C-alpha cells in the first residue's frame, strides 16, 4: 500500500487542507511528544507544546523548501519551542535533573546490577548523561537522524555532531563501568 509522502502532505497543508494536517500529526506526534518531553519533563506541558509545534507547521507549510526531511524540520521546530518554553521558566533549566525526572522508575544502577539486569543498568545510565549527550543519542538511535539531519536540528556543524556522539558513547561507557558493567570500551 502506498502512503502519501510527508512532502506531499506539506503541499496540501500549504493549500489549507486540514485533513492533511491531521494525517501528518497522526504520523509524527508521538515521536515529537517524546522528544519534547525529554526537555520539559511534564506530559501536560509537552502536549501543549506539540500542538504549538504543529500549529507552526500549519502556518509555515508554504515556506517549507524540502531541503531536509519533514520530520527533521518538525523536530527542529519542536526543539526551538521546548528550549523557548524552558527559557520562559528559568527555574526549569534543561539540566541532568530535569532529564532524569521523567525516567526514574527503574532501579538505581547498583540495585539493577544486583538483579543482573544489564539492560536496565544501561537505561539507567542513559538518564545520567548530560542533556546534550542524551539528546544526540535520542536523535541518532530513536529518531533515526543522519549526521546532516542532526546538524540541522541541533544547529551545529556535522563534525561537531560526530564528536558529540562519540563523547556521549564514551561517557555512557564510563557510567556503565562505574555501575559495574565492563564492556571493553572505552
Amino acid at each position, binding site marked *: 500500500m502506498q502512503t502519501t509522502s510527508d512532502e506531499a502532505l506539506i503541499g496540501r497543508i500549504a493549500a489549507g487542507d486540514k485533513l492533511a494536517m491531521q494525517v501528518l*500529526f497522526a504520523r509524527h506526534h508521538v515521536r515529537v511528544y517524546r522528544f519534547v518531553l525529554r526537555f520539559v519533563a511534564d506530559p501536560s506541558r509537552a502536549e501543549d507544546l506539540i500542538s504549538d509545534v*504543529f500549529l507552526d507547521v500549519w502556518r509555515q507549510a508554504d515556506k517549507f523548501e524540502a531541503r531536509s526531511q519533514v520530520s527533521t524540520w518538525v523536530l527542529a521546530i519542536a526543539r526551538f519551542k521546548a528550549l523557548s518554553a524552558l527559557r520562559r521558566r528559568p527555574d526549569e533549566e534543561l539540566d541532568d535533573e530535569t532529564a532524569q525526572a521523567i525516567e526514574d522508575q527503574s532501579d538505581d544502577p547498583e540495585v539493577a546490577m544486583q538483579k543482573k539486569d544489564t539492560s536496565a543498568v544501561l537505561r539507567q545510565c542513559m538518564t545520567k548523561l548530560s542533556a546534550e549527550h542524551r539528546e544526540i543519542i535520542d536523535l541518532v538511535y530513536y529518531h533515526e537522524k543522519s549526521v546532516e539531519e542532526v546538524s540541522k536540528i541541533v544547529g551545529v556543524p556535522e563534525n561537531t555532531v560526530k564528536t558529540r556522539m562519540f563523547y556521549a558513547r564514551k561517557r555512557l561507557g564510563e557510567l556503565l563501568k562505574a555501575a559495574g558493567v565492563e564492556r571493553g570500551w572505552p
Partner: protein
Amino acid sequence: MNTMFKNKAAEREEIEALLPWHAAGTLSRREADMVEQALAADADLAAQYATVREDLAETIVANESLGAPSARAMQKLMADIQADASTARRARSSFNFGEWLSERLSSFSPRTLAWSATAAALAVVLQAGLLAGMFVNEQKGTSFQTASVQSGETIKSGTYALISFSPQASVADVTKLLESYKIAVIEGPTGGVYTVRLALTGMPKEELARTVKKLQDEPAVRFIGPKPTE
C-alpha cells in the same frame, strides 16, 4: 610510512565515529560499505559496534516507555488552526467548492441535506449556463471581455432575494418551486439562508413585492425577502 599510519588512524577514527549511524541504518551506501569492510577486518571495532547496537536497542526501549500524548493535543491543535488568522486567509485565497459544500452538507438534517443537493446541482447547471452564455456571446463576435467581468455584470443586473426553506420541504418540493419560479441559487447557505436570483433583469418594485409575497405563501418557503442592494 608515518603518513600512511596517520591516515590509517584517521580513517579508523572516522569509521569509529560513524558506527552509531551504521547501526541506525542512516549512512549512505558508500559509507555503509566502508564501515562493513572495516568491521570485517577489525575485531576491536566489531566489539565496539556490538555495544553501539546494545545502546540503540535500549534507547528505543527507553523512548517507547515514555508513553504517548492524549487526544487533547490533536483537539487543541485543530481548535488553534480554526482560530488562526492564516487559516481564514488561506480559505479566502483558495476557495474549494467541494470542501465548502461538504462542510455545509455535513451539518444539515437529512431532509435539508436532500434539497441542498438539489440546490448544489442547480448551481452547477447555473455555472454551465453562464459558460454557455459566454460561448454564445463569443460567437456573436462582439468585442473581447473577460469571463469574470461578464458574469459579474450578469449577477449585478438581476433581481436577488434571500430565502430559507421549510425544514419539512422535500427535495421534490424545492425543485418544483425553483423550476416553477425560474429561480437560480447563487450562494449559501449562510445560517440556513440562500441568495437566489429571481430574474435576470431588475424587477420593478411592485412586481418584486408581488413575487416575494407569492413565494412567502409557498409551503416550501420558510422565509423570503428582497436582498438588500450593496
